[in-house]
């Protein structure tokens, strides 16, 4: 079975006409994720100030989220940016709620970061695209 089926995902429509492309957004998200896990960076401090528990990712370079496209195509007007919350190896090993932290980081740090850079409407959530109810996944 495709492991994707067990992931939590949220899809966003990328604002057309903005300077944000799938490529640029994915690079920004992965770079910012890496910064968040790096002590001493502005984003790491921001995560600590927001009381996000980064211990599940401590000492590792694993990504707790993956950025993909709903489709490939001629233009991005019909292609959605999909954020998949993967959790962490450490949390998975102890059977903890694996995706809570990743989602917190996305909602609290990463999404606002993109909105500051590209504009408040850069990403519009597609409510139909949620692959799982957050509550159900988090309580696992």
């Amino acid at each position: 079975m495709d492991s994707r089926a067990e992931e939590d995902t949220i899809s966003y429509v990328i604002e057309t006409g903005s300077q944000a492309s799938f490529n640029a957004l994915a690079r920004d998200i992965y770079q910012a994720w890496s910064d968040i896990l790096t002590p001493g960076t502005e984003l790491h401090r921001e995560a600590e100030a927001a009381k996000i528990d980064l211990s599940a990712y401590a000492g590792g370079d694993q990504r707790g989220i993956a950025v993909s496209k709903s489709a490939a195509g001629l233009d991005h007007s019909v292609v959605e940016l999909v954020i998949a919350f993967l959790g962490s190896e450490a949390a998975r090993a102890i059977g903890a709620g694996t995706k809570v932290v990743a989602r917190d980081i996305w909602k609290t740090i990463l999404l606002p970061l993109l909105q500051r850079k590209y504009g408040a409407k850069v990403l519009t959530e597609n409510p139909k695209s949620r692959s799982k109810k957050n509550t159900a996944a988090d309580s696992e």
Partner: protein
Amino acid sequence: MSRQISWPYVPMMTARFIAIEAIIEHGERIYDVVEEGRAVLDTYYGLANAIKSHEVEGQAAMNATLGRFWVRVEQDAPRTEARGLAATLHERLAELTARDICAGCPAASPCTGRDSLQDRERLALEGHCFAAYWSLCNLSRDVAVQIYAQHNGGRYVPPVVRFCTEQLAKRNTVLNTAFSASTSESAAEGTRDVLIAFCVSEFDYADYEQMLYGIFHECFVHALCGVRLDSGLAYLSESFHEGWMDYIAFLVLDRHLKRGQNLPHLVHANLDGFRSASTKAHEWRTDFRRPGCSSETRLNAFGRRAARAFVAFCSALCGQESGLDLAIGFSVMLNSSNISDETRGRLVSDASRRLVGQDNFARALMNETMVKALRAFERDRDPCVVIDGLGK
């Protein structure tokens, strides 16, 4: 079953396909027929946008709906008022609209307009009402698969490509067309879904001409791609797929059209129109000088520039036609392989660094490693040697 546009839009879109057929059949005289037939077309399209499903006992819903629609067109734009090419157009529209469209349908029974699931299933079987669309789909898939099979050898097994349709709420400002095109992983194993979404109320013959390029891009670049389209690393290969492969797709399609063989009758009737529409669409998505163009456009242009330099490099070493064949062969073998997104993206950067610009290009032609790599590919058909050669 593949996803298909819902019934209320099907007769509207069929009416548009009928007009497009009547226009495009005029080939080089399209301009004249559109100019002289403007009043008829304005009335026709205006009423087409207001089509509502209609039922007559003993008649298929599509035929009954289009029959009533045509009565209204004749009321508002009578045949007696049309002259010259407008009269010819009027007669052709009447003839095409009066056809028993559902009689030629592969589905066992005609659509009813009342069972959305079954109606969509009928359309997915290449319903005859969308024949103009399916003909471009089949042409695109067949040409793309043929090229991939030619370069990958007899054991090549392409993914299954399904064509889907949908309604698009408003005109696509990114492509400047009344349609959008995308490809996604299907729930069915080894299958890719190519989706064309129509802005039904605005779709016209110029969009139809550009749609061939759009569908071909989806088939050639994405549907036959060897790595997952929804990978978390897909962003690393955007310049390769949307720039490099798009340029190769454009060249392949143009060459096929230029040869003029095995084409659907509408494409055959208007070869120059389809070739210029394809050029226009390709140029549009790589025109980074256009004010306000998106960052995708710049990335597309970056990939295309690298591919052009690579084609020129192959042509300089092997001659124009053989060089083009070699560049196409390399590109499709790479695209259909499982070579990673990261390597694909790096190839574009390496080719830009090594081949773009007069001085770089001249140095590359004298570079033994790169020339040897290309010769080795020519002999062994292993794309990795070219990737390594460009990366050194």
